[in-house]
């Protein structure tokens, strides 16, 4: 039972990070390898607002979330719009370079010391019993947040105007543009939402474990989960995260904890060999030049 809880928490972490990858890829066909750094930026945002709004933790959280949303849109409007239409490698490299730039800038502004935003918010991470196993409060928050985010995104993409616009732009940008959909606006929104969810993931992980530079690597570890599920499918992101998280936790428990580092990539390789577009992804030509 404890294993199931652990898998749920880990899968939630991965899923929350993955939906950022999926959103951006689905809408603009760009793989954002700066997602880890954007997660870290979101977490630092929380640290900053927590010290600013001392005594009002909910306000700090809301402010940090809004900040993440705006930063995502800003990243698109400042840089990524120039990379539309360029080759795949150039776009991916632009995101990698952006990640490096953000990392350097964050260290310049915030330093390298480990921070503890949860303490600054004034909350503590107690342990909660659930179905005979134990889960931490932040872990529970992670699971609930992931569920809320996914439900919200499903509803948004299916029933709201902007959501339909996003789906249209993702399916066929040319037709969508000719139909009157402002592609730049849609892409900016996608980046904003992706950074918002990634930032939330970063904030929650920072609350659980402390805020330091290694958060970025966790963003990277979630990347195979997105690919296994299919880079343009939200359902796929959920399923992929579950698969990878389950593989990790079960391997740690029954085989060897060291393998947990390599297993996501081994699963990814297997997936690429058998079904490159993932479990739920659209079967593409795999060529976007």
């Amino acid at each position, binding site marked *: 039972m404890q294993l199931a809880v652990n898998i749920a928490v880990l899968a939630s972490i991965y899923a929350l990070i993955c939906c950022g990858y999926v959103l951006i890829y689905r809408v603009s066909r760009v793989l954002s390898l700066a997602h880890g750094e954007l997660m870290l930026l979101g977490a630092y945002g929380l640290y900053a607002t927590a010290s600013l709004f001392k005594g009002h933790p909910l306000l700090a959280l809301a402010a940090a979330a809004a900040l993440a949303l705006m930063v995502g849109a800003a990243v698109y409007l400042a840089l990524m719009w120039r990379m539309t239409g360029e080759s795949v490698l150039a776009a991916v490299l632009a995101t990698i370079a952006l990640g490096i730039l953000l990392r350097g800038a964050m260290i310049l502004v915030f330093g390298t010391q480990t921070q503890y935003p949860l303490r600054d918010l004034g909350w503590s991470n107690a342990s909660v019993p659930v179905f005979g196993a134990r889960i931490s409060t932040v872990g529970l928050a992670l699971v609930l947040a992931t569920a809320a985010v996914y439900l919200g995104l499903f509803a948004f993409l299916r029933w709201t105007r902007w959501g339909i616009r996003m789906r249209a732009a993702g399916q066929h940008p040319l037709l969508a543009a000719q139909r009157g959909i402002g592609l730049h606006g849609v892409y900016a929104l996608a980046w904003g939402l992706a950074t918002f969810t990634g930032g939330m993931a970063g904030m929650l992980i920072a609350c659980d*474990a*402390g805020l330091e530079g290694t958060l970025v690597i966790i963003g990277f570890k979630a990347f195979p989960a997105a690919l296994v599920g299919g880079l343009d499918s939200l359902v796929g992101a959920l399923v992929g995260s579950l698969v990878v998280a389950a593989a990790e936790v079960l391997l740690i428990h029954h085989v060897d904890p060291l393998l947990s580092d390599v297993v996501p990539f081994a699963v990814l390789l297997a997936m690429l060999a058998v079904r490159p577009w993932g479990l739920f992804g659209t079967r593409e030509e795999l060529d976007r030049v």
Partner: protein
Amino acid sequence: MRKLLCILALLAGAAHAQDAYVIGVSAAMTGPVAPNYAPVVEAMKAYLEHVDGRGGINGRKVRMVVLDDQAQPSRAATNAKQLLDQEKVPMLLNVSLSSTYAPMIAESKRTGVPLYFAGAVCPKETYPPADPLQFCSTAFGANLDSQAALAFVKAQAKDPVRIAFQAMAIPIARAEIDYAEGLSKTLGMTVVEKQISPPPAPDYTPFATKLVEAKPNWVWSWSPWVAQVRTFESMRRLGWNGKYLTWAHLNAEEELARIKDGDFYVVGTNAFLEDNLPVHAEIRAVAARAKLDYPVSYLTEGFVAGLVVEQALRNTPWPPTPQKVLAAMNNLKVDMKGLRGGPLEWTKDNHFRTKQYYRVWRWDRAGNRIVRAQDWQAIEVKR
């Protein structure tokens, strides 16, 4: 960067420089691991400047040339080359991650200049029989730490010991925990679990789960602080109530106050600020003068290194050459002023220290302060 600044300073202050003892340091001043090593260098620098202010060593000043290697082996190699070939230092120091050791050892062997490790774990070659050129004063002692830890566990335990181990998946930590596992069996303890976690793990709960399921009453963890403390916190959240023993890194004092758990023990060789020794006042004064912005509790290791360097250079007749410095270091006894359990002694055969002293601390919930769980225990460092 500092290195070019220092070269300019060297050219500019040539007259003064000729009268100074010069030592070269390659350190992880910046980069992800810098918080563990930069304070050591800054404290050492501040102490040596303080010594200069008091009249210097044998009437001459001491100058430290610090080059940043960002914990990267290739940079450490370049720095070593520069320090040895351009600055021609008679003593080389390494205050950086263990992956930078190999290139600096190679350079030190090439030029015959002694290499002093002051930041990270002491390499096995400094234990007797010691490699002629490698010296070390850092608190960690491979194998010795586990010996001290397990001795403490045995002394404290009232019931049969069911022990579990935790390490981060870096070669040094794994080697130490493997040794501890073997040692614990000879001490009659039951080993119930050993967990190695990759750096970094998004969630330490899976590893903690495995550990908790094995129902240990003691856990010994020897790793970078993050792995040690997060595994502990995860285990507590899973409802485990046993005793957790771990190594006291630079930030141990601060963290004990943050965690506030009565069964969380740290074992280490450096005195805590809590003891309020006279030398701590000295450290505070030196830090204030140099305007260091690290917590004072982080500066002990650097101060120790500063004391060692001062003594070694004091025993080196002018003009200093690598051979004279080596001779001084081969026969060194440094008074630690209470920062360690006893004096640091180097001999021709032992470049680590002849005796390693350990203390154990924990947090006292009732009194809301750090208390000593065990006072200085000496372990002989033999072949």
